């Protein structure tokens, strides 16, 4: 009999373990008989499943060994004591429903936040780790330095000759070097033209790309898939989209972009890029396809075309430092000297970054996709810990506050001979039990809020896909940590009571001026208020960035994609568009405000009568005559481009003030008329514009030069008349569908695009605000428990005060003051702390809002009001009660 035929071994053992001896023989016989019967009728798999189910359903008192009898034999009373602890704990929980609810619910909320954030963080940390060789893969980036050794540009993409040269020059040090280049959203269509889509995630990649990355092949062979030119590998989803359920292998798709039309044969289907990848592909075409178009010789000369993501695979046991040490010599060898006579390695560097670090640590001037940020991961972890801590504090506070009620129990236990350690064990057991109940509730909360959290974080987290081992360790960890932390203080505090005193009825809570409980409440509110103020400041900064005057007109601008046809007929199209009543102006440019300034070239400027090399980076923007007029940029000196001067198209340069200052001119006026050479074009500075924010406010204003270049119309900008966006876009849709047949019409407005730059801050602000309200909620919950308990304890005092003539108002004032003082101390500490913290945060922005006192006031006052409202519920109830009812019994 083979192993496969037997019932599942684990479940056999399990059953043997828990089944009472009296029934074991017959029941196991029955299970086995049924199993072999099922094997014949339904097959092994089904039979095994039925067996497992049957065993689990045997977990019932009538079948199982009697627990009591089982432990009696072990001759220890430990088990009995634990049973007694549990019994007392359950009675305590059920007997004090309000406090138990506050405890359990507060802890559950804290745990749920912790679980969610742990899942989020685990996902963030798991990026790209699924590759078999992940620890040996590094990405190469390229940095340019100016003559002072300052970094002027750092790109995550490098030039195409590097990868083959590295493979050649670093033999033995580098195992593979592969390039990926975006296809820049080609239009892909099936042979019959029936299905066509623009593919954003299209890459050309070296044939060895699958030796480096271990994406799983569903069809085709990784070794040969991309060896031939004009071959294409599709992701599963992409394959479905074009071919449905048919087998796409050996069928073809036509690539259409850069004015090229290439038929590509499909040679493989691979898994979709996992969500936790720092870039996602839909299609990967062979690099030879691209190389054949450009020409291999040509491509190996293009050291300025930095569009190629390059990844290196190092052999096992080889340290990347060996490569890094060789980089300067490598750069000098292939790039030679820069035009000022210095070796290239002084101004050009290659850097490595481990593949698995890219998602959280790489923030270069170009990336394949927007990355995450380790700072946000830390922020989230800290917030989660805070919420959990505040919930733990609630637990500690309520337990110690209620210690009066438990004091007699402790006294009796001690008199009966309980050691202090056993009392500590009792209270810890109790808090672990509460923590367990909370954890179960927390999992429920997580399940409920998961869709919302995913929607907001852009992740696809789920309790079903998370590693069960990780999850159970996490859950167990949270329960134990919370149980121990929250339980330890009450345990030590309560077990320390002197039996004689407590049994005599001495008052335990001597009114010390400062006790730990007050300190903990202050701490809770300190954290909550810090978070609220943080939310306020982040909100202020977002508001500031969105509303700051950028120095040009960003409203009413539509940006449209361009193509060859639009390039060639731009003047004609412009004239046609300008006739529309809804359109104010039309212009084109290589770069549009809100985008990044990534192009730059070298040049010379006339300074003091001599031509001097420009030793810093001036970004270029290729435009047409009306660009600066359309954007309504302010001129400091000189004039704008003029249609009537033919020489403007070839000789005129307009610089911004930052460039003028960088060049060393004393005033904009001085610069106008000076000779200026740039990117091989010789001309004059004809105008100087005031600095304006071309990029988002995360960037300082860069030196810029504007020049007229026909044929660089990557973007067409249409300015529509105020309030006529719909008319204009409707018209443009029709126009663009004839100009770019087959493409979908999509446009964006510049003001939207600017706001999109601040998404990361918006997300942070949302998350911090949700969680800060959560912390204040948990803190207030604890305060409510504490206040109602305090009222309960002092109800007689209130009665006597009223009998002696105190008014409702004065009683309320007296009791509210006790709690308000704690919150106010919290505020006093929180203000400088958050002032310091938020100043730090704002210093990361070149253009930051000033800290507004109002933000701090709102944060503090709202916390205080919330606290007062919460405590006054119980206080009012007590203050208006009839003293007779409270003083009647003693």
């Amino acid at each position, binding site marked *: 009999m083979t192993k496969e035929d037997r019932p599942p071994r684990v479940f056999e053992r399990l059953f043997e373990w828990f089944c009472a001896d009296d029934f074991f023989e*017959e*029941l196991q*016989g*029955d299970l086995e008989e049924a199993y072999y*019967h099922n094997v014949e009728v339904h097959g092994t798999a089904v039979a095994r499943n039925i067996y497992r189910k*049957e065993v689990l359903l*045997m977990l*019932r008192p*009538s079948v199982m060994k009697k627990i009591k009898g089982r432990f009696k034999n072990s001759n220890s009373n430990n088990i009995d004591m634990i049973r007694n602890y549990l019994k007392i704990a359950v009675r305590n929980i059920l007997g004090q429903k309000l406090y138990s609810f506050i405890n359990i619910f507060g802890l559950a909320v804290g745990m749920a936040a912790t679980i969610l954030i742990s899942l989020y963080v685990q996902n963030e940390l798991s990026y790209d780790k699924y590759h078999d060789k992940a620890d040996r893969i590094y990405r190469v980036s390229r940095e340019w330095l100016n003559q002072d050794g300052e970094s002027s540009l750092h790109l995550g993409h490098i030039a195409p000759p590097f990868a083959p040269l590295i493979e050649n020059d670093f033999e033995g040090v580098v195992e593979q070097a592969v390039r990926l280049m975006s296809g820049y959203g080609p239009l892909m269509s099936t042979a019959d033209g029936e299905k066509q889509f623009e593919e954003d995630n299209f890459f050309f990649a070296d044939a060895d790309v699958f030796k480096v990355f271990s994406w799983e092949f569903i069809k085709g062979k990784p070794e040969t898939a991309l060896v031939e030119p004009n071959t294409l590998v599709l992701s599963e989803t992409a394959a479905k989209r074009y071919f449905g359920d048919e087998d796409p292998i050996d069928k073809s798709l036509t690539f259409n972009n850069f004015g090229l039309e290439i038929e590509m044969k499909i040679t493989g289907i691979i898994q979709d890029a996992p969500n936790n990848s720092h870039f996602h592909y839909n299609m990967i075409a062979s690099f030879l396809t691209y190389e054949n178009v450009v020409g291999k010789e040509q491509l190996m000369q293009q050291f300025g075309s930095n569009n190629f993501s390059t990844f290196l695979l190092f052999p096992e046991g080889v340290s990347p430092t060996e490569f890094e040490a060789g980089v300067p010599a490598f750069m000098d060898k292939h790039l030679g000297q820069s035009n000022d006579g210095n070796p290239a390695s002084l101004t050009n560097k290659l850097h490595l970054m481990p593949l698995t670090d890219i998602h959280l640590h790489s923030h270069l001037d170009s990336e394949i996709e927007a990355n995450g940020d380790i700072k946000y991961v830390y922020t989230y972890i800290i917030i989660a810990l805070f919420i959990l801590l505040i919930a733990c504090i609630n637990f500690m506070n309520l337990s110690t506050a209620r210690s009066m009620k438990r004091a007699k129990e402790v006294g009796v236990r001690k008199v009966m001979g309980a050691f202090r350690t056993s009392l500590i064990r009792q209270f810890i057991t109790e808090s672990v039990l509460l923590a367990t109940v909370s954890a179960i509730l927390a999992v429920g909360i997580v399940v409920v809020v998961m869709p919302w959290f995913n929607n907001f974080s852009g992740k696809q987290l789920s309790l079903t896909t998370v590693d069960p081992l990780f999850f159970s360790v996490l859950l167990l960890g949270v329960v134990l940590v919370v149980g121990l932390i929250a339980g330890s203080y009450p345990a030590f505090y309560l077990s320390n009571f002197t039996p004689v005193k407590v049994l005599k009825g001495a008052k335990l809570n001597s009114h010390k001026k400062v006790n730990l409980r007050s300190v903990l409440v202050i701490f809770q509110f300190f954290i909550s208020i810090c978070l609220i103020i943080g939310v306020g400041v982040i909100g202020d900064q977002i508001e500031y960035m969105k509303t700051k005057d950028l120095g040009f007109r960003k409203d009413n601008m539509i940006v449209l994609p361009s193509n060859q046809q639009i390039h060639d007929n731009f003047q004609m199209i412009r004239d046609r568009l300008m006739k529309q009543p809804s359109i104010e102006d039309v212009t084109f440019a290589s770069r549009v405000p809100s985008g990044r300034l990534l192009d730059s070239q070298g040049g010379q400027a006339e300074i003091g009568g001599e031509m001097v090399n420009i030793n810093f980076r001036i970004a270029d923007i290729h435009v047409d005559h009306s660009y600066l007029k359309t954007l309504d940029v302010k001129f400091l000196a000189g004039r704008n481009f003029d249609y009537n001067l033919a020489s403007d198209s070839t000789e005129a340069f307009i610089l911004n003030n930052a460039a003028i200052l960088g060049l060393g001119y004393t005033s904009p006026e001085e610069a106008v008329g000076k000779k200026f050479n740039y990117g091989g074009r010789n001309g004059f500075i004809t105008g100087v514009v005031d600095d304006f924010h071309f990029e988002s406010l995360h960037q300082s204003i860069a030196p810029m030069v504007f020049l007229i270049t026909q044929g660089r119309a990557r973007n067409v900008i249409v300015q529509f008349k105020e309030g006529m966006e719909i008319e204009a876009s409707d018209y443009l849709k029709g126009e663009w569908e004839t100009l770019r047949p087959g493409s979908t019409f999509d446009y964006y407005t510049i003001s939207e695009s600017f706001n999109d730059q601040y998404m990361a801050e918006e997300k942070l602000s949302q998350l911090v605000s949700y969680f800060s309200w959560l912390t204040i909620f948990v803190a207030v919950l604890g305060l409510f428990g504490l206040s109602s308990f305090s009222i309960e304890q002092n109800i007689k005092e209130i009665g006597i005060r009223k009998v002696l003539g105190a008014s409702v108002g004065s009683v309320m004032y007296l009791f509210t003051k006790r709690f308000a003082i704690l919150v106010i101390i919290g505020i006093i500490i929180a203000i400088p702390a958050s002032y310091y913290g938020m100043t730090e945060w704002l210093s990361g922005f070149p253009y930051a809002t000033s800290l507004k006192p109002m933000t701090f006031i709102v944060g503090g006052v709202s916390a205080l009001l919330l606290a007062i409202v919460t405590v006054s519920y119980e206080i009012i109830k007590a203050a208006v009660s009839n003293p007779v009812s409270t003083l009647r019994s003693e």
Partner: protein
Amino acid sequence: MKGTYLGEFQEVVLLSILILQEESYGVRIQEEIQKELKRTISRGALHTALTRLEEKGFIKSEMGGATEERGGRRKRIYTVTNLGKESLKEARAVREQLWTKVPDWAVNINYAL
């Protein structure tokens, strides 16, 4: 008469034992009930019911012979005691009496409501 009260499931189990006679042991009873009632019951649930019935004295059991397909393990054969038979009859009598009191028209199934 709490002691002799028969639950619906217990009644089914008793009847199955009577049907199966000397073949009435765990799996067979389980099969019989699943076949006749067309519902799945677990062996564990059946065990609980059998234990309860034996406690009440409605059935008694002895260990029977072992067979090859049970890995050489013996099976427990159940028989219904006189007490069990009495309570079965009683349960049936109660029902029949109730049925005689039900007017015919009351059980006419009326679909045109």
